[in-house]
């Protein structure tokens, strides 16, 4: 609140550097001013008003000018008078200019006589304009900044919601990714199975080819192979029981001889076939003329190969059967020999086996079975004694 008592006062607000009191209308002319010279206060004011920026050629944008106040007598009471000049500018969230000055008169009571006063407020916006211009130029050159700045507040406000939404989307992505992965795994498995099948087929083909090659090799040295198989069978049988092994050895020898003979016979047969085929091919070739020589030779070669395979296969099967027969024969021989020894010692076969296991000489055992036959119990008793 301000309360003033004045006899005369005048003020002017606007732009420009002001005018001297001597140029004002008669109504506001005070004292005996000399036109063109002014009072001391007016001359001081002229210097004051043109100090600073104006002297630099930068005129203010806003001027509140109280050029000269002349008062003969004034009683002034001021109670909490505030005056504030602020310069504020804000561009989005990029620039926030705020600068100002405030004047506060808490409580003033005074009497003034014969006073001349001036007051002046100037505000320049050039710097603010330059800063804002530069900001706007930056935004003009980088329009994405406006978008990002505009979204910034929305992003902050909706951040939580978007986060939750993002989580949901992420979960969906995970689920989708998992499903896709499973699908891919299924596809991969299918492809793998296909590859396995293909590989198996190829392997089977290779096996067949290898079998054919093996058969071919067997045809070449069937005799030796069968003989080796037979010897292996003989060794196996020999390891089964020592006693039976001896018999099996003899049988194996016989079997080996038989296989050898068979192999030799097969070889001879193959040779004969080959020879015969060759002869036939030769005959065909001769009959067909020189032009058919190559074809006849191919036929002879194919026939020979086929026969060799069949012979090798037959020899292999025979060898297997011979080995099995040798094993069975060895077993039968062992059983028969044990039976004979049991009859010789007048003991049961179980007693014979127990005597062998316990190292008991049946000649020293007294039989308590039917007709004095030696039983297992007798053998165990003799072993305990």
């Amino acid at each position, binding site marked *: 609140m301000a309360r003033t008592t004045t006899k005369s006062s005048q003020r002017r607000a606007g732009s420009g550097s002001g005018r001297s009191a001597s140029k004002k209308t008669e109504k506001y002319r005070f004292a005996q001013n000399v036109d063109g010279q002014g009072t001391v*206060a007016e001359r001081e004011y002229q210097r004051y008003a043109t100090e600073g*920026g104006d002297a630099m050629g930068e005129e203010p944008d806003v001027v509140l000018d109280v050029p000269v106040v002349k008062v003969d007598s004034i009683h002034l009471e001021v109670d909490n008078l505030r005056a504030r000049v602020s*310069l504020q500018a804000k561009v989005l969230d990029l620039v926030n200019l705020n*600068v100002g000055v405030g004047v506060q008169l808490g409580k003033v*009571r005074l009497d*003034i006589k014969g006073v001349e006063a001036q*007051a002046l*407020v100037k505000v320049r916006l050039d710097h*603010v304009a330059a800063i804002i211009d530069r900001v706007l130029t930056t935004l003009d050159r980088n329009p994405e900044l406006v978008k990002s700045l505009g979204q910034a507040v929305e992003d902050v406000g909706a951040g939580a919601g978007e986060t939750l939404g993002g989580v949901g989307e992420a979960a969906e992505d995970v689920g989708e990714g998992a499903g896709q992965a499973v699908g891919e795994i299924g596809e991969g498995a299918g492809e793998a199975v296909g590859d396995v099948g293909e590989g198996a087929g190829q392997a089977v083909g290779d096996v067949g080819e290898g079998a054919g090659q093996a058969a071919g090799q067997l045809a070449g040295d069937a005799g030796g192979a069968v003989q080796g198989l037979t010897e292996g069978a003989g060794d196996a049988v020999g390891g089964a029981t020592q006693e039976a092994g001896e018999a099996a050895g003899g049988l194996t020898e016989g079997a080996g001889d038989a296989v050898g003979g068979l192999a030799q016979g097969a070889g001879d047969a193959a040779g004969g076939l080959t020879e015969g085929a060759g002869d036939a091919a030769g005959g065909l070739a001769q009959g067909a003329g020189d032009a058919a020589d190559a074809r006849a030779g191919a036929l002879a070669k194919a026939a020979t190969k086929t026969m060799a395979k069949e012979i090798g296969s037959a020899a292999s099967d025979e060898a297997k059967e011979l080995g099995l027969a040798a094993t069975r024969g060895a077993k039968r021989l062992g059983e028969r020999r044990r039976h004979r020894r049991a009859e010789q010692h007048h003991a049961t076969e179980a007693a014979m086996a127990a005597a062998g296991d316990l190292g008991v000489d049946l000649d020293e055992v007294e039989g308590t079975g039917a007709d004095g036959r030696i039983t297992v119990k007798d053998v165990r008793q003799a072993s305990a004694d």
Partner: protein
Amino acid sequence: MSSQPGHDARRPPDIEIGGRARARSLRFEEKPQAKVDFHGDYEAETVDERERLPEHVEPEVTYRDASVRWHTSVRLDRRLRGDLSEDERPRPSRD
């Protein structure tokens, strides 16, 4: 006279407030309560010149032929405009 660090005297102030008064007789009935404050990011310079008038006046004392000149200049903080080069500094645009 008071001045903030970094004050650039060559740069015209963004806000100026000033006044001067000359009185044949000046008498305060009670001790005045006056205060000047600044706000924002500013650089300020204040000039306070007095003739026959102490900085702290006393009530019921008549001061004769007293004069006072007070002027304050406020500039935007250099940090807000410090990267403005000489070429970028504002120039008068009015005709």
